[in-house]
Structure formats: structure tokens, C-alpha cells
């Protein structure tokens, strides 16, 4: 499998175009979810992120190809995250690199059996993508939470304006 010159994940995910693309997908995904609730939202957001990655990275393929299973896994990792901190510290004491690599493997979806080099590569891409996801979701949440208030405030203004 040969790839051409690959853009660095830091630069690839931080472009405004990419944020726009993701924002669009995020909205569609949010609209498409029937279930309400934070978990469904998170699943939608993650699958939107994986879709925006176009399946070029292993973690995105893992999310896309098995949303149900991966969604459950994500939930489990979500709960594991709070417990995993202790486990990570325990692993620290155990093996320096091996333990941490194991933790990283659990965190990045779809990278359970990757070698160290590929794992780090996937992790770089995943970190960049996550940062973009957080940005977009925060913007959306701010806009949506501000919208009703602004709409309510705009009513008298608009009435007066037009």
C-alpha cells in the first residue's frame, strides 16, 4: 500500500476547511440521531469525525465499520477512562514503555494490535482529529445555547427593525 506525500496530522486537521466539513457532518449526524441523550450525541459526533477522516486512518475505519460495536466500546472506554487513570498509573510502575503503549492502544480505537510505530502514527492523527472535534462541538454547543436566548432577545429588536 503506497501513499503519496502525507500531510502532517497537525496541519491536516487544523484547516478551516476541515472544520467546516466536520461541522456539516456533525450537524447531519445530530439531526439523524433519533435517540436523545449524551451518548447518542457522542456516537454521532465520533462517527462524523471518522467520516471526515475519510477512512484513511485506522481509528477512523474502526469507528466507521462497526458503529454499533464501536459505540459500545466507546461507551466502555468512556467509563474506562475514569478507571483507566489508575490503571495507567499502575502500568507506569510496571513497565515504562510497554505499559503506556498498552494504555494508548486502548485509547485509540482500532489499534489494539498495531506495532509501536504505527500506533504512534495513528495516535498523532487521532489527537489532531480529536482537537478539531472538540473545537467544533464547543462552537456548536455555544451557538445553540446562545441561539434561543439571542432569538428571544432579537424578537423585540426585529419587530422594531422591520
Amino acid at each position, binding site marked *: 500500500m503506497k501513499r503519496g506525500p502525507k500531510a502532517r496530522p*497537525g496541519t491536516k486537521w487544523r484547516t478551516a476547511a476541515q472544520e467546516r466539513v466536520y461541522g456539516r457532518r456533525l450537524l447531519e449526524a445530530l439531526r*439523524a440521531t433519533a435517540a436523545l441523550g449524551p451518548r447518542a450525541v*457522542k456516537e454521532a459526533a465520533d462517527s*462524523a469525525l471518522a467520516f471526515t477522516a475519510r477512512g484513511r486512518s485506522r481509528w477512523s475505519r474502526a469507528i466507521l465499520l462497526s458503529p454499533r460495536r464501536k459505540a459500545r466500546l466507546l461507551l466502555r472506554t468512556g467509563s474506562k477512562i475514569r478507571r483507566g487513570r489508575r490503571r495507567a498509573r499502575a502500568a507506569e510502575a510496571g513497565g515504562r514503555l510497554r505499559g503506556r503503549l498498552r494504555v494508548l492502544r486502548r485509547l485509540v480505537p482500532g489499534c489494539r494490535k498495531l506495532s509501536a510505530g504505527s500506533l*504512534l502514527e495513528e495516535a498523532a492523527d487521532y489527537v489532531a482529529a480529536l482537537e478539531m472535534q472538540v473545537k467544533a462541538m464547543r*462552537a456548536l454547543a455555544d*451557538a445553540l445555547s446562545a*441561539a434561543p436566548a439571542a432569538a428571544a432577545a432579537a424578537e423585540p429588536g426585529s419587530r422594531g427593525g422591520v
Partner: protein
Amino acid sequence: MGPARSSGVGSGNSGAYATEIAESLRFEEEIHSIVHPGLDSPPAAGGSFTALLGLPANQAVELLHETGPSEAPGSAAAPSPTGELWRLRLGEHAAGPLHLPLGCSPTFPSNVALVERAARFSVFAAEDSPALSSGGGPSPRLKAEPPDSDSPPTLLIPAEKTQRLAKRKECEKSKAKGPAKKSKSAEENTAAAAKETAAENTDGEKLPYVHVRARRGQATDSHSLAERARREKINARMKLLQELVPGCSKITGTALVLDEIINHVQSLQRQVEFLSMRLAAVNPRIDFGGLDSFLSAECGPLATANGRGGVALDPALWSSHPVTANGARWLPQPQIRHVDVWPTQQSSTAWTRDGAAHPHALLNPGAALFGYDPASSVSLNSNQLKTEL
């Protein structure tokens, strides 16, 4: 000398030498077969000669030409048919590539010499200049010999071959030993490169060749080389990650950097969770199930407030959109289909129409977030998004 050397290099070392020996022997046979039966198809023979000789032939001719002037006086001084042939050869060479139809039998001795020369020079071409100069030693000897007659050259060929073979082996050995003694870098490079490719293939990586040079005092067996290559790859990736994660560039030590990376990933994932909780909390109010209702939440009061004319079109536009034609609610799907639904132009007009009357803070973040791409507001959206974030 340059082209001859390059041609030899292309053929390789000992393997090519064996083939050249075979070729030269074949030439001998052809010479014999052609000389003895008669002069039936000299051009064909010549053609085959040239074909067999290929490139070295021309270069051998050139070399002939070079050595020719030195011989011409000699051959002129001792007139012999072969001497004249040498001159003829030179004349031919001046004209161009080998032309054999001049005369068949006279050309053969020179051809024999040509063959020897070609073989010798192509053989020696693979070696360095010292070898070439040593090969140049026997060549004048040989040049003096062919003018004598046919049979001595043919006899000489095997003798010369053995001599050349011995010389060549020595040269090869010395050449092999030299670099090995000087530095192990060549071996290491190839070994490391091989290991790199092997590692690359197994990992399925996309990195190009990485040449690893063993430093002084480091082990050079293949295992440590492979490990070192692997370590360097991992360190390169770690550097990338360090740049990505804030505050990692100051930390030294792979383990601590990994710790930081893990913490960063965990914090990002937690943020995603919290934000999704926020969005879920916001969602029911906006009623995400329907596009028109979502928009109406923002434009609804405005629609009622503003005149019917312009703004009232928008809900109609939205409802006529195939998306909302499904009903006010998306059908729940096991997989979320990501279809680009937003009609950019309509939305842009909607936003811009309302934009005049409404606070920009409301509309612009929304527009920026929705990612409309009207040509005018592309930069505006990105700016807005950036300031938001």
C-alpha cells in the same frame, strides 16, 4: 575509458565476467567457423560480432582508435596485412561503427583482437582505475601479438583469460577487502536498508528507505541494526506527537512524553463527552429532529416579526427541501448516512436576508458553523469560527 567503464559496471562483476569469457570463446568459435569454411557470410558474422559485442564493441573500437595511432607507425614500419588492417580499422572507425564488408578474412584477426580487447576492457571496466591500469599493462602486450597471426591469438586467448581471471579475482578481492577494511558502512547500509525494507514491509509502513549508519563502537549485526532502525522510526513518530501535544516539547524521555500524550488523549475524549452532554441538553429545545423547526426556532420569531414576504419563504423553502420532505423527523438508521443536505445558496440568502435585522452574533456563528460556502462569506465564516473557538 569512461564509457567502457560504465558499460562494464552495468554488466556486474564476476557473473558478467563469466559471460564475457563465454562470449569471447564463442567469438573464437565463430571466427574459426567463419575462417575455415570460407567467407560466406562475413557481414552476418560481423553483424553477429557487433551484436554480440554490443556496446563494448564501439568502445573497443574507440580504444582501438586510441591505441591505433601508437600502433600505426609500428605497423607501418613493419608492413603486414594486419598492420594495414589496423589502419583500415582506424579508417573505418573514423567513418563510424564497425563495418565489416571490407574484407572478410583480413578483418578476422583484427576482429579477434577486437574481441579480446572488448572482453578485456569490458571486464576491466568494472574495476577501478588501478585495475584498469594494470589491465592496460597486458593490453599493449596483446596488441603487439595479434598482428602476428591468427593462431597465436586464439591460443593466447585462454592464456590471457586465465591471467586476466587471476588478476581480476585479485582486484575484486582487494576491492572487496578495501571498503570492508576502511569502514563497514556499505555493508551496514545494505543490511540496514534490507532490514528497513523488511521492517517496512512487515509493518506496512509508507516510509521510504532510511539508511542507517552504524556509529563507532556500536554493534553491527543485523539484529541490532533492525532494532536501531525501529527505534529511530519510533523516535521520529514521537517527535511528531510531541509537536502535536502542547507542552511536550520540553519533556525529555520517551516514557514521560507518552504519559503526556495519554493524558492529552484522555482529556480530549472527556471534553468530547462533556460537550456531547451539553449538546444533548440543548437538543430537545431546538428540536433537532426537523430542519425547518430548527431553523424556525431561530427564524420563527423573526418570521413572525418580519413581513411575510421575504422571510416566510424560508420555511417554505426548507419544507420543500427533500430532506424535510421525509417528515419532520429523520428515520432512525443503524448507520448514520452523511449526505450533504444543506442547500447553500438558499440558506445564504436566508441568512443574509435576516442578517440585516438581527444581531450578527446570532446568525454568524450559526452560519459559520453550518459551513455555508457562498463565495462572499467564506472568509467571514472561517474568521467567525476562529474567533468563536
